Every structure is written in structure tokens, then in C-alpha cells.
């Protein structure tokens, strides 16, 4: 059988960094072939080469046995290749039909009624139910993903590339997606499934290839012999033990108290609805939930970055409502923000300056508003060394560092202030395993020191490994707080999908 897609010796470099190094990869008709690798292993680069977004420096691509020059997405689409990007390529201000038809029509006149009818027909054919007339901005994440898949199939794709499709889904929605994929397989569609989640890959794939540092290191043709441990070790290249060491510890007094918190967005729509949560000294409370369920707003509410429309935030016994962000920091808040580029760092300023974003006005770094160069440099050197921040010089722009080192700047400077409450929002997002381990160690060390930690993450594995208690947020509401012992993947998954069971709500009061 000839593969529908065959990639031979693809090499792609960015400057001196080789993102793909002689990658060879086959996809057969009607199979789901997963591509597994760490962040930065080169998965997205490879897919973008196949989809014509980047040109490869070396190598060839064959589609249905014929050599193909794919110089642009347009040509990829013409060859029957479709891609669903990790960040959806949808236009919120357009309707579903407008999004789907975009770029498809040669003729000038656009008859939306006719287009909508065609889309409805296709959505029934593939069992992907969407309303063509709805604005994309009104759809849920799961629905948006369906639109993306339909968009690709509507263009006649036979090869479907899914880049981290489950990152934004609940376990239940993921099952739903897998059902769709199995249906598509029957129709002869081949799927490249990109993920770093081991269990999902095992459950959906026919074959798995491992990409590490730009190279294909393994290809597992028979998955019956595989377990997550084997895949994980192959992925990072050395034996890893899944899980972290954590000592038992009795939590102290309550540090953060959130009572009936309400936060509205810019358009005055309620996002956080009567949220209750408390975090005690020396404990880690994990906040699980699918991305976009109000985590950002909750964090910003607790950190004083967004106005509250109701309820209260009590930090170390002080009521914080209406106070500026500075007051929260002074009261003992340390905040590792979710988006390190937008909120955590000033990329155009130096590594040194980024280490002092909170503390620059304090003694001994400033005296009578004048910066004290000596004290600043000494402290910076200490922080860089202590946190193993790899930088050529302190004067280097923070933007020039790798993601892991950037995150170390933030984690290092925040924990150095010895906060009483640490909010760690998606602290390991986009980091490789080494940096992830470092961040986890830092968080656990803070806990040992008696810091109260609120860990927000969409990675259920991370939450379950670190937390003493797990809270679940769904559409801005707290679905329940579960002690670690009772927090199974299934139970949390149901809460993340908005299904409240009695057991969970019974413990929510604690």
C-alpha cells in the first residue's frame, strides 16, 4: 500500500537552530498516526512544513506517491491536506459559514444563502453539527473545533493534521472528538495527531512516532506493547519517573480567603460567579478546569488586576477589595502570571531589569529614587546563579532567552520575595521537561516554607501530582473542592465538564 503522505529527510533550520533534522515520516490511508514529542521538539515546525507555511531547507514530500512541492497552504489544500491549528484560525466577528467559505470561492459574487445550505449538508454528512449562521464568537470551544474540522473537510481534505487538539477540551469532549475521528477513518481520512499527552495518544492512535530535538527517534507500529512509561522515556531520551516527591505536611492558618467573588468582563458580562475558595499556609490548592472557563479572570480578581463586582478577597487577614495591585503585593502576594510574555516580562528590557520589576523602588536597590547599581547587580547575579538562569549576560534582552530561562526569571524573582501567597498560573506551559521539573521543585519548596499556593493549570496530571486539594472551575463557578486522595481523573474530569455529582459537592463545603 502506498502511503498517502510520505515525508523524506526533511530538514528545517531557524538561524542556527535546527528544528527538524532529516525527519522521515509516513502516513497510510485510514490511519491515525500520532506524533509525540516535548514542547520545542519540532512537531509544529514539521506540520507547518507539510502544510506549506514554512519551506523546508532539505528533503522531499510525496503525496499519494507523487512528489509534491508545497510552497503555500493553498497548494497543501489543493493536495487534500488540511490542518487544524492548536490556536484556532477562526475569525470571531464572522459567521461559521463565512469562516468556512473564506478563501474558497474564485468568483467575485458571494451568495451566503447557498453557501450556508452546502455547509449544512456537509455537517450532516460528517456528523459535525454546527449552525452555519451563528457567529463564531458565540460558540463554545468544542463547537469551534468542530467548525475547524468541518472547514478542512469542506475543502476536500483527505489528510487531516490536528495540532494539540485536546489541549482545550475536557476529558469528555476529548472522547467526543475521538468518536468523530474514528468516523472519519471509516471514510478513508488519514489523521496526523499531534500531542504530548501520552494516554490520549495511546487511546486514539494506530501508530506513534516520537520526535525528539528535531529527530524522529522511535516509531511504534504495535501499540499493544506500549505503556505511558515507555513513551515518556522515548520522548525525553532518558528514564523518567512520572510524579513528584511530596512530603506530608499539616497546613497552617488561612492565607487566602475568597468569598462569593464576582468578576465581570469589559462588556459587563459576569465571568466569575459567586466563587468561594480558601488556601492555607503550606498547602497547594490546584485549580483544574478547561482553558477559558474564567481562570484568567479569577486570578486577576485575586491579584487585584481586575475590578470585583461582588464578594471579597481576604489576603492574610486584610480585606483587599478595591485596592491597587501594589497593595496585594505588599500584603504578601507573589504572582507567576499565565502569559509570561505579556504579563511576566518586559521582553525589550534586560534580564537584569526584569529581575526587579516588583522590587526596584525598595531599598537597597533604590535610595531617594536613585538606582543603586552595585546592589542591583549583586542581587541579580545571585538570582541568576541560584535559579540557574542561562544567559550570556545580564544586559541581554529578556526576549532573547529561551522559554525555560524566561520562566526562571519570573519564578526566581517572585519566590525570592518570599510571598505568603503564591499564584502560579500555568507555570509550566510550553516548557521542556527539565524546566518543568525545576518549576515544580520551586513550588514544592515554597509549600515547605509555609507559603500558600494556588496552582492554576489545564494539565490535569500536573494538578493531581502537586496539589493537596483540587478545586474545579467551570464557566466561572467553583464546581467543588476535592482532597487529593479522592481526586481521580474521572471525578475531576466530570467536574471540569460541568457535571456535579453528589460526592464532589458534599466535600465542596470544606
Amino acid at each position: 500500500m502506498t502511503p498517502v503522505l510520505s515525508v523524506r529527510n526533511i530538514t528545517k533550520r531557524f538561524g542556527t537552530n535546527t528544528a527538524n533534522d532529516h525527519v522521515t515520516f509516513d502516513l497510510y490511508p485510514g490511519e491515525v498516526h500520532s506524533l509525540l514529542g516535548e514542547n520545542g521538539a519540532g512537531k509544529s515546525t514539521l506540520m507547518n512544513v507539510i502544510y506549506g507555511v514554512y519551506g523546508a531547507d532539505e528533503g522531499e514530500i510525496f503525496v499519494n506517491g507523487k512528489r509534491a512541492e508545497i510552497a503555500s497552504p493553498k497548494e497543501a489544500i489543493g493536495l487534500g491536506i488540511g490542518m487544524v491549528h492548536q490556536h484556532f484560525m477562526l475569525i470571531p466577528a464572522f459567521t461559521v459559514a463565512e469562516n468556512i467559505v473564506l478563501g474558497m470561492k474564485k468568483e467575485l459574487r458571494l451568495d451566503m444563502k447557498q453557501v450556508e445550505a452546502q455547509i449544512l449538508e456537509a455537517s450532516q454528512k460528517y456528523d459535525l453539527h454546527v449552525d452555519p449562521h451563528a457567529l463564531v464568537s458565540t460558540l463554545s470551544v468544542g463547537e469551534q473545533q468542530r467548525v475547524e474540522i468541518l472547514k478542512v473537510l469542506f475543502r476536500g481534505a483527505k489528510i487531516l493534521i490536528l495540532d494539540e487538539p485536546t489541549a482545550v477540551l475536557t476529558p469528555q469532549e476529548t472522547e467526543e472528538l475521538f468518536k468523530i475521528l474514528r468516523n472519519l477513518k471509516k471514510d478513508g481520512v488519514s489523521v496526523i495527531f499531534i500531542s504530548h499527552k501520552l494516554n490520549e495518544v495511546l487511546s486514539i492512535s494506530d501508530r506513534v512516532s516520537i520526535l525528539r530535538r528535531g529527530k524522529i527517534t522511535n516509531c511504534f507500529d504495535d501499540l499493544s506493547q506500549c505503556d505511558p512509561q515507555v513513551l515518556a522515556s522515548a520522548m525525553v531520551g532518558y528514564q523518567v519517573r512520572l510524579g513528584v516527591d511530596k512530603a506530608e505536611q499539616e497546613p497552617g492558618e488561612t492565607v487566602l480567603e475568597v468569598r462569593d467573588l464576582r468578576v465581570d468582563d469589559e462588556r459587563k458580562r459576569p465571568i466569575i460567579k459567586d466563587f468561594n475558595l480558601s488556601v492555607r499556609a503550606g498547602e497547594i490548592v490546584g485549580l483544574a478546569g478547561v482553558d477559558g472557563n474564567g481562570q484568567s479572570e479569577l486570578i486577576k480578581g485575586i491579584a487585584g488586576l481586575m475590578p470585583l463586582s461582588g464578594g471579597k478577597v481576604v489576603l492574610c487577614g486584610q480585606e483587599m477589595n478595591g485596592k491597587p495591585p501594589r497593595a496585594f503585593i505588599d500584603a504578601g502576594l507573589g504572582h507567576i502570571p499565565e502569559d509570561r510574555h505579556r504579563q511576566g516580562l518586559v521582553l525589550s528590557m534586560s534580564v537584569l531589569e526584569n529581575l526587579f520589576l516588583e522590587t526596584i523602588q525598595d531599598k537597597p536597590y533604590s535610595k531617594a529614587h536613585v538606582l543603586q547599581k552595585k546592589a542591583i547587580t549583586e542581587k541579580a547575579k545571585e538570582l541568576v546563579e541560584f535559579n540557574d538562569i542561562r544567559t550570556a549576560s545580564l544586559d541581554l534582552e529578556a526576549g532573547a532567552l529561551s522559554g525555560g530561562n524566561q520562566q526562571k526569571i519570573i519564578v526566581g524573582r517572585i519566590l525570592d520575595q518570599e510571598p505568603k501567597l503564591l499564584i502560579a498560573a500555568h507555570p509550566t506551559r510550553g516548557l521542556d521537561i527539565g524546566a518543568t521539573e525545576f518549576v515544580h521543585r520551586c513550588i514544592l519548596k515554597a509549600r515547605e516554607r509555609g507559603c500558600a499556593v494556588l496552582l492554576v493549570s489545564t494539565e490535569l496530571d500536573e494538578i493531581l501530582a502537586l496539589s493537596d486539594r483540587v478545586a474545579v472551575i467551570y464557566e466561572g463557578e467553583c464546581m467543588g473542592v476535592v482532597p487529593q486522595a479522592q481526586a481521580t481523573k474521572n471525578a475531576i474530569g466530570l467536574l471540569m465538564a460541568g457535571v456535579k455529582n453528589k460526592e464532589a459537592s458534599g466535600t465542596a463545603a470544606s
Partner: protein
Amino acid sequence: MNKRVRSVLNSLISVVLALVLAFVVIGILLMWRGYDPAATFLALFKGAFVGKSNLSASLVLAIPLILGGLGIALSFRCGIFNIGGEGQLYLGAFAATWLGVNLQGLPFFLHIPICLLGSMLFGGMWALIPGWLKIKKGYNETITSVLLNYVGLYFVNYTLASFFKGEGTLNNQSPKIQESAMLSRLIPGTELSTSLYLTIAIVILFWFIFYKTDIGFKLRAVGANGEAARTSGVNTGKYLLIAIITSGALSGLAGSVQILGYQHLLVQNFSPNTGYDIISVALMGSLHPVGVALAGFLLGALRSGASVMQIMMGVPVTILYIIQGIVILSVLGFSYAKIDFIGLVSGLFSDSKRGMEKEAAK
């Protein structure tokens, strides 16, 4: 090579290249119209730099450009595109003149500071309108500030035609300011006044605050990434307001130093287009205080030289705007395209392998 030295050199080279490009374009234009480009440029150069009176005229023109340019640089660096310098400058000049005319019997050491502060207050408040609208309401400050330019300009013209019109003159101009409000001359027979010292002091102070204090640190952080600054506890609204008010105040000062320094009364359109030229100065100076000072001096010199050139060669001064436009666009182009001239040059002299290592080290 030190990274900072390298970036300074790169900026300098890009400005020089931009100037060369501008002069080539102007040279072609001149030849088309039958002028001698060499003689014209020589007249421009002599008029700008040669001789005590020419040089001091250049400085006189540079002073408002530097002051205003600093303000624009500050607001641009904080992400506020205040292009309302023209209106702020006219209102500042109006305030200084009004105080200079109507306050009587004050000693000069009180009268002059009061006039200068008055102009800064008026300029700052005029800038505060678009600034406040942007920070609190999210309005596009470019459009509001430029509309206020016209409002401010016509308002001042209106006052000069009505209640602030000097007696015994047919022109629309204000009465003369009191002696006690006039800045003293540095060089007799020229228009250069002690405002030169003021300007130098403000450039140094500006540089010091911007780079050597925690206030400047926060201004820079707010400008480069407001959200990160806010997350780390900086009151961004406060710093943005400081930036915009300072920006307007400096534009106002750019107006008042001209009145107190040598004009001594307010005439309609007394400083045409200066409010826009300061934007050119800020951009040519890469939004850095020292760069702004150099760019302001350069543009002042070109302006002063150009009027000599117009008299001697008959070439219109308006070619300056072509030069300005080309220089701004090229400097912006070079900086956004991240062209590394030093790297290019050193690449020419060393073999390719070493050049690549340098690239990798960056």
C-alpha cells in the same frame, strides 16, 4: 563590542545614511530645476554652522525642537502617540505671554519661572485631554490630539484678534511682555538667550530620571509592556499620565522659551509647524534623550541654514520637509528591519566563518 556601543553606533550610522539618501534625492531635484547642488548644499552648511551669528541662530532654532522633542520621545516611548505638540506649544506660548504681559512689578527671578511654569501647565493640561481620554476611555489619542492642535492654534489666533490684541497695532499680535520676564542674551547681537542653559539642564535631567531612577525604570517598563508592569504592581495609569503631562509641558516650554527668549510678544503663527517638527526630532533621535538633543540641533541647524540658502540660492526652505520625511522614514525602516550595520561592515572585513560565529553569539 559592547552591545550598547554597538546599538548607538548603529543608530548614528542609520541617521547618517538617511541624511545621505535625503541629500541625494534633493540633489537630483535641484539639478532638475537647474540649481547647482554643491553650491546649494555649501550655502546650507555655511548658513547652519559657520560664523558666530549663524551658529547661534541654529541654536536658537534648536532649543524649542529639543525641548519639544524630549516630550514627544517620552510619550512615544510610553506608547502614547501624542501628536498634539502644535496645540500644546501655542497654548504654552499664550500662557507665558499672558503672564509676561500682565504680571507687573515682579523681580525677574520670580517672573521668569512663573511664566515658564505657566506655559508648562497650559501645555500639560492641553496634552492631558487626549491622554486622559486614551487612558481612561480608550480613545485613539492620535486623532484627538491632532484635532486639538487646530482648536488650540485657532483659539490663540482668536485671542490675538480679540481680547489679547496689543494696542496701537494693526497686526494680530499681543502686547510686549515686561522686561522682567525676558531671558537675558548670551551673545550680544544674537537671539541666543539663557534658555540654552535651561535646555541643556533639562536634557541631562531627563536622561538621569529616565535611566537612573526608579521612576524612569517604571516609565520604561510601562512603555515597553504596560500589562507586565501592572501585573508587577506598577500603577500604570499614573505613569502614563505623568508621561503625557510632561510631554505637553515640554511642548509648552518649547513655545514659551521662544517668547521669553527673543520674540517678546506673541504673533499669529509665530512658530509654524514646530509642533510637528518635534515629532521628526523625536523619531530621528531614536526616542533617546541624547539622540533627541543631537537630532534637535541638527534640524535647528538645517532650518537656520535653509533660510540662508533660500536667500543666497533661491532654493525654497520647504526642501527641509522632504529631508525630514526621508530621514524619518529611512531611520524607521532601518530600525524596524533590524539592519545591523556594524555586523555588515565587520562581515566585509572578516572571513565568512567568523561572521557566522558572531551571528550565533548574538
